[in-house]
């Protein structure tokens, strides 16, 4: 397993993603910082850092969707999977190593988000508090959403065998989650059971930040969290079964 992890990390370090995406995040932070402070109105000092961080988090979400899909089936697309599968490692070990590296990448990008938010605040808005409480809350909220979204993306990637489609669907899920959950809520009025559909659980992020969302989801935050974990496990297990049975 350590060999597999080392190899996955080696690939990432020699790829452009881990350096290229943070550069995009840094530029986005600095641009947002400039525009937030260049207006004539008063700057809300506490909201400044939160807004910058939020912009970064959106980019982290997109990055993670791209990353999860690519790490899962990029080897199939490039045919390098032949080397990966023809060795002494089981496909379960390979699959788990990819999951672990995905978590590493999330932690890395979140750390970058904190650093870039801090840098941007230091450059454009030194006064006032960082508002760490809200920032940390956002970090955990997004982690819950990713816990559900990334297994979905991995599952779709494995089904369609095309990371382009999986990335597109993942990003659509992310940006359209409020629309999808809106539909889901409408349908729930007719069929209450739909509150347990995975689409309703896409609201876990909103409910984590605003407990009032319960009125829409018809589920408590704890149930939302448990459901998110259960769906994550189900989607991951199905994705693994497909991965395990793929012929090369």
């Amino acid at each position, binding site marked *: 397993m350590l*060999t597999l992890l080392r190899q996955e990390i080696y690939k990432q370090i020699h790829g452009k993603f881990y350096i290229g995406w943070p550069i995009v995040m840094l530029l986005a932070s600095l641009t947002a910082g400039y525009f937030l402070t260049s207006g004539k109105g008063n700057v809300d000092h506490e909201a400044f850092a939160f807004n910058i961080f939020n912009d970064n988090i959106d980019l982290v979400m997109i990055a993670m969707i791209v990353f999860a899909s690519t790490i899962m089936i990029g080897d199939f697309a490039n045919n390098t999977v032949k080397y990966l599968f023809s060795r002494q490692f*089981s496909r379960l070990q390979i699959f788990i190593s990819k999951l672990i590296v995905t978590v590493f990448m999330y932690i890395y990008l979140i750390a970058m988000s904190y650093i870039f938010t801090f840098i941007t605040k230091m450059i454009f808005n030194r006064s006032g508090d960082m508002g760490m409480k809200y920032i940390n809350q956002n970090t955990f909220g997004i982690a819950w959403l990713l816990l559900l979204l990334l297994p979905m993306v991995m599952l779709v990637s494995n089904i369609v065998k095309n990371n382009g489609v999986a990335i597109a669907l993942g990003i659509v899920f992310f940006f359209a989650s409020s629309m999808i959950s809106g539909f889901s809520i409408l349908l729930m009025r007719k069929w209450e059971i739909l509150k347990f559909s995975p689409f309703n659980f896409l609201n876990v992020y909103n409910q984590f930040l605003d407990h009032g969302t319960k009125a829409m989801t018809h589920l408590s935050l704890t149930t939302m969290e448990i459901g998110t974990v259960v769906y994550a496990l189900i989607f991951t297990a199905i994705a693994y079964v497909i991965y395990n049975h793929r012929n090369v």
Partner: protein
Amino acid sequence: MKVLEVNNLNKKFGQKQALFDVTFDVEPGTILGLIGPNGAGKSTIMKSIVGLIDYNNGSIKINGESLTKNNRKGLKNVGSMIESPAPYLSLTGYQNLKLFNDGSTTEGEIKEIMKDTQIDSFCNRKAKKYSLGMKQRLGIAISLLNHPKLLILDEPMNGLDPQSTHDLRDLLLKLSKRGISVLISSHLLDELARIADYYVVINHGRVVKESDAKSFLSSDNQNIKFATNDTEKAYNALVQAGFEAKINDKVVEIKDDGDAMNKALAALNNAGLEIQDVSKDKADLEESLLNLLTEDNKKEETK
């Protein structure tokens, strides 16, 4: 202990049976040529061995270790290159070697592999800039990492220029002398004939023949040619002596079944013919294979 044992391997793709009870083994330090026409099942066998595809029935053992979906320890000492090489294109050749090294190959050994496979001159360039032959050599270099006891090479000579093909041949012979076994498929039969110790011929997913190289190229695939002062009379004499003879450009040909030469000479002498020349075909793997496949295809048709 045998390095590789394949027993009654069966594989179906949907309703189509691709392999039928394929059985063969590979001895330590030998080179086994897996030969047959396109679509015969050679790559399917190789892919099944290294776990790229699931097989339906049968068993595969590497160094006595049974290979299953979840027990793949046997593959620890197997290097392979199946179909075409597929390095990480965004990495250099050297980085690819570092990537696939599981830690057991030292830096010195990596350099030796690069020298053996002659990739050292371009190993610092990104693999996306490589020609097919360069990728092929890199693929072979990757398969040599981690001290393999068995190499599985599917068409490794594809895309190589004559010099590189010659060098690869020498490398494989060198590895074989070091005790590394090689399972190799190639359409370049002349090249294969120079290195293989054994052949397994696959046709329509079945093992048609398994033999050592000498026997495979032996008598029943060779012709003896007689030039005499009377071709017609010589033909009749040989047919009367029980040979399946044919006239080809004023020469009478018979199949060499090992004892044919003496019997045929006796028959021609008894017929009072003057023998002007006797020659034997050079052993030819391609012709032997074609003869074998023709016979096998005839059998298939009559089934």
